């Protein structure tokens, strides 16, 4: 298996959900998908293709809230990122933590730093801001002129 095989199998299985595929190098790629399809695509990548979840990166840009879910296939040293863009007005996405525990902390962290809502999170408690941060203030949000 190589990076192309991973990209092609995701593209073929989820042709309606994949918006864009960008292969940067032999071992690095980004697959942009519709936010509502994150659960089935991530499940396929994690369970069928057996990729390991590394971490997720949220970012506030002019497009909205972007999340990159970094997955890796260790046997070939490949990092494949699932990319979603959420609207600023309603930043909501399904939580992956019911599928595997590795996203439990980072989803809570992204909620506290950016205010992104992860629906159906199994443990929606505060992780890093317990007791010492103001409510409703999301420190990593940006202001655009």
């Amino acid at each position, binding site marked *: 298996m190589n990076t192309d095989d991973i990209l092609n199998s995701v593209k073929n299985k989820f042709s309606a959900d994949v918006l864009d595929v960008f292969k940067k190098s032999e071992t690095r790629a980004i697959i942009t998908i519709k936010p509502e399809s994150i659960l089935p695509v991530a499940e396929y990548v994690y369970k069928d293709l057996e990729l390991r979840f590394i971490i997720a990166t949220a970012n506030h840009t002019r497009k909205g809230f972007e999340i990159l879910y970094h997955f890796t296939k260790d046997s*070939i*040293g490949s990092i494949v990122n699932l990319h979603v863009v959420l609207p600023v007005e309603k930043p909501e996405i399904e939580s992956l933590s019911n599928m595997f525990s*590795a996203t439990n902390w980072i989803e809570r962290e992204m909620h506290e730093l950016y205010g992104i809502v992860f629906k159906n999170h199994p443990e929606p408690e505060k992780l890093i801001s317990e007791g010492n941060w103001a409510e409703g203030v999301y420190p990593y949000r940006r202001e655009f002129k």
Partner: protein
Amino acid sequence: MVKKTLIPIGPYHPLQEEPELFKLYCEGEIVKDIKWETGYNHRGIEQLSEKKTFDQSFFLVERVCGICSTSHPFAFANAVEEAGNIEITNRAKYIRSIVGELERIHSHLLWVGLAGHFLGYNTVFMWAWKYREPILDLFEMISGNRNSYAMFKVGGVRRDIENNKIPKIKETLDKFKKKNDLLVGAVMDDPVIHARTKGVGILTKQDIIDYAAVGPTARASGVAIDVRKDDPYAAYPLVNWKVITAEKGDVFAKAEVRLLEMYESISIIEQCLEGLKKEKEGEIEVKVKNIAAGWGTGHAEAPRGEVFHYVLTDGSNSPARHKIRAPSYTNIATFKKSCIGQTISDATISLAAVDPCYCCTERMAVAYDWKTGERILNGNELIALSAEKTSKLKNK
């Protein structure tokens, strides 16, 4: 009916180098549930990095962790160089790997010492930390600092390891190897250490995959992942070495992986030193004019596991977004699996087994009554409890 108890460990506790609160919910002696509070150390480093230039950010990410202070610059350099499509010289690659492996040795020794202390084996603690000193002295010779070496920069390293320093490094490693044989023998052949660590804090392969645990924690459960092998960087593809794994997933397996990894590190350093001799002195960096807009994902194998950095660049001289994931971030979450069902006296060593690093993730332990919330034991008492169990086993 058995009385239920809550044991808090932290936020400030000798078990841990940094603040974090663990709450062990106990029924009699058995841990039934574990919860934690983090955030005591959140320093906003990801956002600070966006305000600094790439060169300045190296000094910042070096301070993410005090123990493995090179692993973050290593991953950051990999990420920025991937974004900027920069290929560094062989000499710089060798120097990076030497620093990375020396750090693995000193960090594993630190862990072995602390694990010995938690078990009530202060001789192991004193030996391990004594043998660690000459390694730190090597760092002082190479970089001028015993910790936070400031060796890395975009396009190479800041300081050369001149050829006249090679004999001294080799001599220190030869001496250390003999001492390490003693230490490994003392830990691996001791029946009491076997009794205290075998079958304790077990993580299965499925737990590792579920929590995405990395490093020695994963390798001790038979998951052979190591970024140095899987996605080779620096000089690791240029030298011969093997990934150490164990199958049992208990505390002993984690100790075994770390102890044997030190021999691999010594071997890697020796081969890198030979490689250095073939390269021209002084060729330690390539000139980097600018980093084009784009992104880079860099990872590096720190002593505790994979460090991951994602850098988004916009063509300016600082990152537009910088994400840092330390190995303890995923490893600490495995406590839910490794501690539940253990006795309180085994909980300390189970917590310590993943070598959790709070400055990386943020941590601590105390016991509360399950129903009343009344405080029962503090960290010192927990360590004393663990030491007591060891001395009982010794006397048997």
